């Protein structure tokens, strides 16, 4: 298709466009269902059984069960929908967003208090900012995996 997708070159970012929306349709509809207290209760009582009521892919279900929001997003989830899972777990938006960086909750919170993530090196894929793929995971987790030689 000849339409521009100029947002494809932004690191660490998935823009929720029609393609993503199609992919994530049932995952996101499942999330919407958690806006009812009774559905939250049913989900918490038996997550797998509740997920099986939805036409989600097995991968989407696994991503939800693992509470891996990056994985959820790769399968078409959008953060505003996925936030309903976090809310069901009693998590804040800060905890949810932070969980996608590899940082601990405290590390992420401290980064925000210190002024947030810098834009430098994070505008285009291929630069060397903190959001670039070669610098994942971030925080202590990143230093550890780096020290253990798991990353170049």
């Amino acid at each position: 298709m000849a339409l521009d997708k100029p947002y494809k070159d932004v690191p660490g970012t998935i823009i929720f466009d029609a393609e993503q929306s199609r992919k994530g349709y049932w995952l996101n509809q499942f999330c919407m269902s958690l806006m009812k207290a009774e559905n939250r209760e049913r989900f918490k009582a038996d997550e797998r059984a509740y997920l099986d009521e939805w036409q989600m892919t097995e991968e989407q279900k696994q991503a939800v069960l693992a509470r891996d929001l990056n994985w959820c997003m790769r399968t078409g989830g959008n953060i505003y929908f996925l936030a309903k899972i976090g809310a069901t777990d009693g998590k804040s938006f800060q905890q949810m967003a932070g969980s996608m960086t590899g940082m601990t909750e405290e590390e992420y919170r401290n980064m925000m208090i210190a002024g947030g993530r810098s834009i430098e090196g994070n505008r285009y894929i291929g630069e060397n900012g903190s959001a670039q793929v070669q610098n994942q995971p971030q925080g202590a987790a990143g230093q550890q995996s780096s020290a253990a030689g798991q990353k170049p």
Partner: protein
Amino acid sequence: MAKITASVYTSHVPAIGAAMDLGKTQEDYWKPVFAGYDFSKQWMKDNKPDVIFLVFNDHATAFSSDLIPTFAIGTAAEYQPADEGWGPRPVPVVKGHPELASHIAQSVIQQDFDLTIVNKMDVDHGLTVPLSLMCGPLDPVKDAWPCPVIPFAVNVVQYPVPSGQRCFNLGQAIRKAVESYDEDLNVHIWGTGGMSHQLQGARAGLINREWDNAWLDQLINDPAACAATPHINYVREAGSEGIELVMWLIARGAMSDIEGGQATGPAPKLRHRFYHVPASNTAVGHVILENS
């Protein structure tokens, strides 16, 4: 005739609502955020509007993937605070203004903006947090918001979102609509959302203080240039959710200095400007402009 006398711009971070609802406003983390609205709460009392036209975005609350309106105007008599997963916020029900809202809908559609008219909509933090910030804490049952609110929801969740230019032009159409309403009403228009923030992926937590403030300068002093900011700049410079800022351009376009897409009249008076990092994942920006 009805008249837009002022515009208010503010972030609508859900954690701000939670901080108020849980009585945390005096904690060190939150104090500086709420201090930025002390002026505004007094200003609201001194300049009480008859109606607030409140531009916000729904965050996958009233609208799912089943139906995504680019622009939706609420013409209902009232709107319930939504349960976004944590339970509904304990704030008063939002009363609408069906007559003015329908009038604006009719006028704006006839000016070639293809609105969706909504008569049933729960309103999420995008709408209630700005009200809480500007009005202070209120009892959900005993108190009421100071005036009726016309909710105007903009799609900024699923791409493509409307351009800043389209939003700016829409603001002008809204002003024209308000001014063709016979009843004398003092109308405020609010633009909410932003400023820089990203809630997803490895780039979560992005804040761009410099860009935000340059954008604010432009919004206030050179709005036509601000309106020309391409979509990709918001995403790249202000984070994937920074795109919410296009909604501020609707309010700015409705101010009386704007004519034919240009700032030609006397500039509005800047009554208040505030910027703070962080509130949760987000840079908080806030501006009040009064028509001269």
